């Protein structure tokens, strides 16, 4: 085991929380059960790391094996770092028949054509997601495993999620993805966030949306105790209406946890009291950022409690509707 592998392992163990270290190592299966048993997980992280490095050295593990461990950890805990979304468009005729083996070969060969010295690892997760780990190297230097890019995609669906991609490598990766999934183009989907699961649920529409129906589900039996009989909400209808509208716009139950939404305004400044600014011809540029631990939940609450007026403005409702959280607003039109 060379120094770079050791370094990689040390960094990785430092990232994995102590409580998860054992289960992650168990899934790795590169160390025998005996060796795993010999590790004492009650010790401090630093000592465990030392022992683990020694064990791996004894088992003659290489960088390749360490990256496997990293991949296991990341696939189990995808909600970290910043994930950006891209959308594949204009599929070729045979795009729907791309299967995993074919995709693996194609992707690797396309990427290697574009850039020498890249290390690519592709694995399929249990929920049909294809996970790709790319470690980039320059023309001469060997791949840098410390800053690996992760890509998640579902074959036959247009969305691709990317983590830790530098602008230098972006065109290379996107081209390889476009070609190997048999599409003609790829574009930014203007959706990003820390939680991969939330982004996926939003785009795959896997959260509970509310649609008006002719046969609404039976209402839960109301509490008929004395106190409820004597307390009456005068505006119950209006408030029920607000709740319904908020639900129809943002969905029901647990919502995908988006952290932020950014609106970039490039519109003319309009304020009758401020003539100097109003008369300027060039647009007034400003950016408005909404952030919260769960933005959609907060917006739903705003709408249902009446802080934001209902029906909800198209600006806010297009976050779940279009599945994006970055908007550029110019005069009259809401465009990318």
């Amino acid at each position, binding site marked *: 085991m060379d120094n770079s592998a050791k370094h990689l392992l040390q960094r990785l163990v430092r990232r994995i929380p102590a409580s998860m270290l054992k289960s992650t190592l168990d899934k790795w299966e590169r160390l025998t059960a005996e060796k795993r048993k010999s590790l004492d997980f009650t010790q401090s992280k630093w000592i465990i790391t030392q022992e683990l490095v020694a064990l791996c050295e004894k088992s003659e593990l290489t960088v390749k094996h360490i990256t496997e461990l990293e991949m296991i950890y990341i696939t189990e805990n995808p909600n970290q770092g910043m994930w950006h979304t891209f959308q594949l468009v204009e599929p070729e005729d045979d795009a729907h028949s791309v299967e995993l083996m074919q995709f693996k070969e194609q992707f690797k060969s396309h990427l290697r054509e574009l850039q020498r010295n890249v290390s690519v690892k592709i694995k399929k997760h249990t929920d049909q997601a294809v996970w790709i780990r790319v470690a980039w190297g320059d023309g001469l230097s060997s791949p840098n495993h410390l800053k690996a890019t992760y890509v998640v995609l579902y074959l036959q669906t247009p969305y691709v999620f990317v983590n830790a991609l530098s602008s230098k490598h972006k065109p290379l990766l996107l081209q390889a993805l476009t070609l190997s999934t048999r599409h003609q183009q790829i574009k930014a989907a203007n959706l990003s966030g820390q939680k991969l699961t939330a982004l996926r649920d939003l785009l795959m529409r896997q959260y509970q949306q509310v649609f008006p129906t002719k046969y609404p589900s039976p209402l839960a039996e109301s509490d008929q105790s004395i106190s409820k009989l004597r307390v*009456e909400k*005068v505006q119950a209808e209006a408030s029920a209406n607000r709740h319904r509208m908020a639900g129809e716009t943002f969905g029901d139950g647990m919502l995908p946890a988006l952290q932020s939404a950014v609106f970039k305004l490039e519109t003319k400044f309009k304020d009758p009291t401020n003539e100097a600014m109003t008369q300027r011809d060039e647009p007034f540029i400003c950016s408005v950022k909404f952030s919260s631990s769960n933005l959609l939940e907060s917006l739903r609450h705003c709408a249902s*409690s009446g802080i934001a007026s209902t029906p909800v403005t198209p600006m806010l409702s297009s976050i779940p509707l279009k599945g994006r959280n970055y908007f550029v607003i110019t005069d009259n039109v809401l465009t990318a």
Partner: protein
Amino acid sequence: MSLLKPFSKLPDLNTANILLVENEEQFQQNLADTLVEETAVTVNVRLAKSLPLPMENDESRPRIDLVVFIINLTSDKSFESAKASLKYLDPGYFLGKVCFVATNARHASVRTGCLDALRQLAALLHCPLLFAEDQSPEGATSSARRLLTILKVASGLVPNTTALYLSSLTRCTMPPDIDQPSFD
């Protein structure tokens, strides 16, 4: 514009009706649950976010004896909404049948001047201003108890007293130095 009138309907026997108006709709529910526990008189509570009240259930609504505005001092919107709602009350209510309850008065994020503005408003309208603690059940109980005292008088259940008489004793008065900046 439909005004809420204090004497347009007949009262019920041994019944007092209170209307709690709160923009956030948070404290009012706790308060209502505590208020209806009163056994000596039948207390009916109506909850609203703001005034005017909808016309649809106007028929079934009993005579409102006391209107309470709950104002969260940490939120400007709460104060503004209450101020806007005041327009929909008949002037007859201001003869002792309106009361303000301020919550979160000691909260760190209360804007300076907000409390003074509320005090000024209450003094101007000759209404009492109560302070409540809205986080604990004890807070709800004690404010409910105070409201009940006013409510009983306002609904005419206490002999020899009238709402107007009580309000002349309990109404908020402007402290003489309110126009000066406070130095605390």
